[in-house]
């Protein structure tokens, strides 16, 4: 029997497999038992109602997708008073993804979530590339990222995960900045900015122009970001980007992640999450790892690899 449990900061998870924000909802309970997951992660909640972006909001590319959904939603108040009722039906820790336009709004929202029963952790989406002009986001620079996290840290005692962006020159610096600002974990990474053009209509395929790129095609980049962050910080790294198979998840763990999130793959295979979980356990069993946490960082530079392997 492989021990699948992992600790992410103060939070104990039954296993390291969870969904990625914005690609998941309680609707997936129609397909499998969500209580099997290590944690549940909501789509990003924003302080106010948001309509979302122009259509089309999604287009496919070679082994990936571009999205500019625009975080539509009914706002934080509706989330805390209405949506939470549905989430409380499930047993895994609930991680609420939070997005906001200003440092103050992030702090206020964090305080509100901390006062809401059933919220196990906040994932601060400081990296969504669709919100600010030309895709700019807090997570682009260490200073702005740290400011948002520090304000949330001061406003609440919940475990605080910082979701970082690939759209930065030096993600290790951003990771160090949010660690110092009090983040309990970094989630690496959100989508990278991309574009596709409809050459017959001569306009971008997405209504909003550019969009966030995700899926298997994005995996080598996300894996590199995890590897860079894992060498930069002591807090746990949660890996996300292009994970579709158990082997992908093993790569992320070996690159230094303590847990993984599966996003776009759930669109193509709604059973991808349990399949990754089962395959991860099978890999550990086959290679003689007693704990899934033993995989974390095995491929990092200078690591001694188990002799028996």
């Amino acid at each position: 029997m492989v021990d699948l449990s992992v600790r992410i900061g103060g939070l104990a998870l039954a296993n390291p497999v969870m969904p990625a924000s914005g690609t998941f909802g309680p609707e997936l309970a129609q397909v499998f038992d969500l209580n099997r997951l290590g944690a549940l992660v909501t789509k990003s909640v924003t302080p106010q109602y948001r309509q979302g972006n122009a259509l089309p909001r999604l287009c496919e590319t070679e082994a990936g997708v571009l999205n500019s959904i625009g975080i539509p939603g009914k706002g934080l108040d509706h989330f805390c008073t209405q949506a939470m009722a549905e989430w409380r039906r499930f047993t895994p820790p609930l991680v609420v993804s939070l997005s906001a336009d200003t440092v103050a709004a992030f702090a206020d929202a964090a305080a509100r979530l901390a006062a809401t029963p059933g919220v196990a952790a906040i994932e601060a989406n400081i990296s969504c590339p669709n919100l600010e002009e030309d895709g700019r986001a807090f997570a682009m620079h260490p200073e702005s990222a740290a400011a948002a996290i520090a304000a949330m840290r001061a406003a609440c005692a919940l475990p605080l995960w910082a979701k970082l962006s690939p759209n930065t020159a030096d993600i290790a610096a951003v990771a160090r900045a949010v660690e110092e600002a009090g983040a309990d974990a970094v989630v690496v990474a959100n989508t990278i900015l991309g574009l596709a053009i409809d050459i017959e209509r001569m306009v971008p395929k997405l209504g909003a122009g550019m969009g966030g790129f995700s899926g298997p095609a994005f995996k080598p980049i996300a894996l590199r970001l995890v590897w860079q962050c894992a060498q930069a910080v002591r807090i746990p790294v949660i890996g996300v980007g292009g994970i579709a198979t158990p082997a992908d998840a093993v790569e992320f763990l070996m690159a230094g992640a303590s847990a993984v999130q599966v996003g776009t793959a759930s669109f193509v295979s709604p059973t991808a999450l349990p399949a990754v979980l089962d395959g991860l356990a099978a890999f550990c069993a086959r290679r003689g790892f007693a704990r899934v946490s033993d995989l974390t960082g095995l491929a990092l530079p200078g690591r001694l690899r188990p002799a028996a392997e």
Partner: protein
Amino acid sequence: MDLGGFPVAEADLAVVDSAPVGRRYHRLLLDSPALSAASRPGQFFHLLCRDGGGNGPYLRRPMSIWRCGAGQRLGFLFHVKGRGTAALAALRPGDRLSAVGPLGQGFRLEPGWRRILILARGVGLATLAPLTEAAAAQGITVQALLSAQAPGDLMAAEFAGASGATVQAVFDSDGSSAVPAVEALLRATFEGPARPDAVFTCGSNRLFLLLQRLAAEYGIPGQIALEQQMGCGLGMCFCCVRQIRAADGGVVNLRVCAEGPVFDLQAALAW
């Protein structure tokens, strides 16, 4: 295929029939008694479009249920349009097809109804076809008005199956499908002894607007099946929204895959 207690399955199904229909359409029949029995007219499946060799686009494609029911093959009828549907049309009996479903909200038939009218164009008839048998099973008489480019594109047999529905056809080729001509036909029906208790449509924006206007005028309830490009098919990604008029008169974005694909005829906005 055991649904294992979950209403939606990700199932790997065997293709039992795969054949072209007319010049531009194709039908697939799959072996899946449990999924077929669990499916309702108006619902859809999200299909992984891979040809026999595994080639195809990254995302799934939504496809209405064309045939379903206890003891029946699960069937799809589609327009071979782009990369995804081309891969589906390349499947051969014995190949496997990954299908997620049944998904979405299907058509609603109310107990008191005795007669319904279906107005369909093009491949919209695939979506409406299973409604004919469901209605027949409830003793509801079905009258259908099918619009097509030319007689060769009609697929009346594919539509009505064994339902016994009365089918009337109009064509672009002889001008009978022009909106004023169809309007006259509909008015005659709505004013005559065979006035339907409800109307249903799918497949044409023009016909939708006509039917919406006339149904409002005659006070007949209606339903429409809408299409929209999809990501997850399950209600999670919010890429498939359409504008729908809410009860309070405001306009809201609803998900075709979750709140739809069938919406109230008067609530739907033109696209």
